[in-house]
């Protein structure tokens, strides 16, 4: 016979399940509201910008008849609410319309250019974290020493030097001067037709084909843009790591640990570092989001066909379908990063579970 109290109260597993369901529903609701807001915002941004979408398509010298025809084709003669619902329906089915800049569906363009940015961003954030975090910790551990000063100056330069300038100087020295790295573009002209695009990530595609000459060419062209973007990310991460770490190192539990005879290295990495992990995750996610959003100037100097350049070019041409498509994709990226951050918080900080 079952215990009456057990029947009246949900079990521990049941309560957990309920809490998790509520939390998941809350997250999904937040995502849905954010996306709805983003779509609404992009629609109205598209309507208030001082571009005439018809002129952007036809140029400034078409006949009145052609203008009227395209005006109707775009549905601009219909009421605003009708345009909005059509837009909402299309966006929710990932139909962002056709790009004026390429004549192709925007989603196809984004699928084409996004891997180029992902390749750049992933490598940049990897090196940015791998170098930035230890440097930030080292600077904090030796606060005020020459090492701290050196790291701070190094990070400050990375933080403040314009990527555009760094890119051109880097090309002049390492590509044109020393010939150590490849030039602008993702691949040499020689390999233009040899690569079989599967993932869009040239390193992976060339490795899958076992074409190590193409792989080497791609690496040689990634070194400079990745180096420059990683330097910027590293500078940001190192400065923030130093700041978080300094705060931790001044806490009483650190002094207590040192008083008990725990080594400095152990205090830093075993006691202090786990406590800055949550903040670091946020910083890294922000840096990664920025890199994915597109480092426009770096992509311009290095003729890198990525998302940032695609969106900037579209904006300058009044290609609003492409711009709004990119804005929504970037919004999705940030929402995804936020969700991932939340998951990391839960892993690192039991209080948030």
């Amino acid at each position, binding site marked *: 016979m079952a215990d009456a109290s057990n029947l009246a109260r949900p079990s521990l597993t049941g309560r957990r399940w309920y809490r998790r369901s509520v939390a998941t529903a809350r997250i999904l609701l937040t995502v849905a509201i954010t996306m709805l807001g983003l779509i609404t915002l992009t629609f109205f941004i598209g309507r208030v910008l*001082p*571009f*005439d979408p018809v*002129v*952007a398509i*036809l*140029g*400034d*010298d*078409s*006949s*009145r008849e*052609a203008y009227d025809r395209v005006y109707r084709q775009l549905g601009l003669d219909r009421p605003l609410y009708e345009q909005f619902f059509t837009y909402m329906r299309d966006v929710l089915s990932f139909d962002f319309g056709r*790009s*004026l*800049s*390429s*004549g*192709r569906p925007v989603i196809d*363009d984004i699928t*084409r*250019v996004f891997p180029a940015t992902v390749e750049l961003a992933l490598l940049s954030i990897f090196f940015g974290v791998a170098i930035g975090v230890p440097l930030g910790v080292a600077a904090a551990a030796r606060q005020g020493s020459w090492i701290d000063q050196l790291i701070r100056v190094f990070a400050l330069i990375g933080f403040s030097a314009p990527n555009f300038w760094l890119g*051109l100087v880097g*090309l*002049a020295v390492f*590509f*044109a001067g020393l*010939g*150590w*790295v*490849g*030039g*602008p*573009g993702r691949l*040499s*002209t*020689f*390999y*233009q037709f040899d690569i079989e695009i599967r993932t869009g990530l040239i390193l992976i595609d060339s490795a899958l084909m076992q074409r190590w*000459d*193409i792989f*080497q*060419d791609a*690496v*040689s*062209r990634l*070194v400079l843009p990745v180096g420059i973007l990683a330097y910027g990310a590293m500078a940001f991460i190192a400065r923030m790591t130093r700041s978080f770490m300094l705060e931790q190192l001044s806490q009483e539990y650190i002094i207590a640990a040192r008083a008990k005879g725990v080594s400095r290295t152990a205090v830093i990495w075993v006691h202090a570092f786990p406590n800055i992990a949550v903040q670091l995750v946020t910083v890294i996610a922000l840096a990664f989001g920025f890199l994915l959003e597109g480092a426009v100037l770096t992509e*311009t*100097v*290095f*003729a890198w*066909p990525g998302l940032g*350049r*695609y969106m900037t*070019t579209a*904006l*300058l*041409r*009044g*290609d609003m379908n492409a711009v709004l498509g990119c804005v929504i994709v970037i919004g999705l990226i940030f929402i995804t990063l936020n969700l991932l951050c939340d998951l990391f918080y839960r892993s690192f900080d039991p209080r948030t579970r």
Partner: protein
Amino acid sequence: MTKHLSIGCALLAATALTLPAQAQTPQNTMVMAWNLDAISNFDPAQIGEVVTNELITNICDSLVALDMENESEVVPWLAESWEVSDDNMSITFNMRTDAVHPSGNPVTAHDLVWSMTRVLELGFGNAAMLTSYGFTVENAIESFVALDDHTFQLNLSDPFPISIIMQAVVSGRVGHVLDSVYLKDKEVDGDWANDYLTTNTACVGPYHLRQWSAGEVVVLEANDNWWGDGPATPRWIIRHVPEAGSQRLMLEQGEIDIARSLGAEDIISMQDNPNVVPASTLNHQIFHMSFQTGREPFDNDLVRHAFRYMFDYDALADTVMAFQGIPRHTVVPYGAFAALDREEGAPFYLDLDKARELLEEAGITEGFTASLYIAPGPFAPEVAQHLQANAAELGITINIEQMASAQLFSALRGREFDLTLSSWQTNIAHAHGMLERHATNPDNDFDSQLAMYPSWRKSWYRPDFNERVRAALFETDEERQLEMYRQLQLDHMEQAAGAYLFQQYNNAVLRSNVEDWKWHAFRVFYREAHKN
């Protein structure tokens, strides 16, 4: 020791990995770097900018061609010969019988009828190349006639000079012969295959479009079915490199063969480099300032004329416009038929006292404020700032607003501007080409939306100029015609709604092993260029 050795090996491997695999370009491929942002489609009826125009003229043959050595001379091409009727009202073209489209369909006169009719039906900017000479949607059936598969007749509504019709109509974008049989299958909702031709080509020419990745690359490959001798270089790769500095470094390293978007500083800095050769040709393109004459005080001829004395043309030509253009104050480009010579065509100079006098004569003594719109470009910001500084000395405040080209286009079409800086290019080496657009305005009513006429955009309407331009065009006595054009230009220079500033160059810097780079104001002949 072992640890150090491992680190050393890893570093060596990393260094080897980063070394560029290939530095030079393939021998059978010409690699050109250019800013390809302007490309948005490959439909000859819709193309309206320099980059795609250059590409399409190497992809699609037109009925007749401009001579490689002389931009004013028309030579047989898809039409092997032609006869003009005695009354100058009709031209009959005898077309080649051996020309075949890439699809295998023969090139016929019916293709040309369809191609020219669709330009009118679609009504994009290029339709004005036909409507300017009396061709309309309504009269297309009588105007464009296929007498048989290889005989095409062009019937005119007025006895226009045949040389102009040959240059403006049948040698240009509207005279490209498209594969009508193939394209009719690609039509969607009566769009004359415009959608298909946005990203594809279907015509006969020395090259075909193999690939266009927007913002990345355009690849042209030799068309094996072409009727002429095959091109000297079978493949062209045109890489999108928007930054001039990057182009220069790539050219110096031999990673590209031709750079097309270099600025004055880059060209000057490479002058002593034996591995590269600069090339330039004077375009029939004029960089100018437009005034909105529908707004005060620019409705006053004297005010607009005062602005012509606010530019130091020579100083600009030596600095920001070095390798970019020469001073030119008449709208008719140097090199066109009936153009004023270089001295008479550039009479203005910096003279702020003279400008002040003209403003006072116009009744303006207190100065005023105006907006100057400019699109992103290589030299417009510097020229705008130059004007801003000089105008400030006369009490005129110029607010410069740099904007996206789409925004500027919208402002121009809506007549919503005070001043703008932009360029305009004609497609014929004849005074009429520019005067017809800049000195005539068929209907100044806003609802007419004749935005293909810069004079309409500026609300500039002078019936006397309309008549004089037409009279000069139809004048048969050449000496008298030259004098009429001369007077037109002199009067237009003082009254126009534009201050014409510079005639622009088209620049390229080539690797020294590139030979037979043939070009002039209207064409670049890819089929001739090769590497030794």
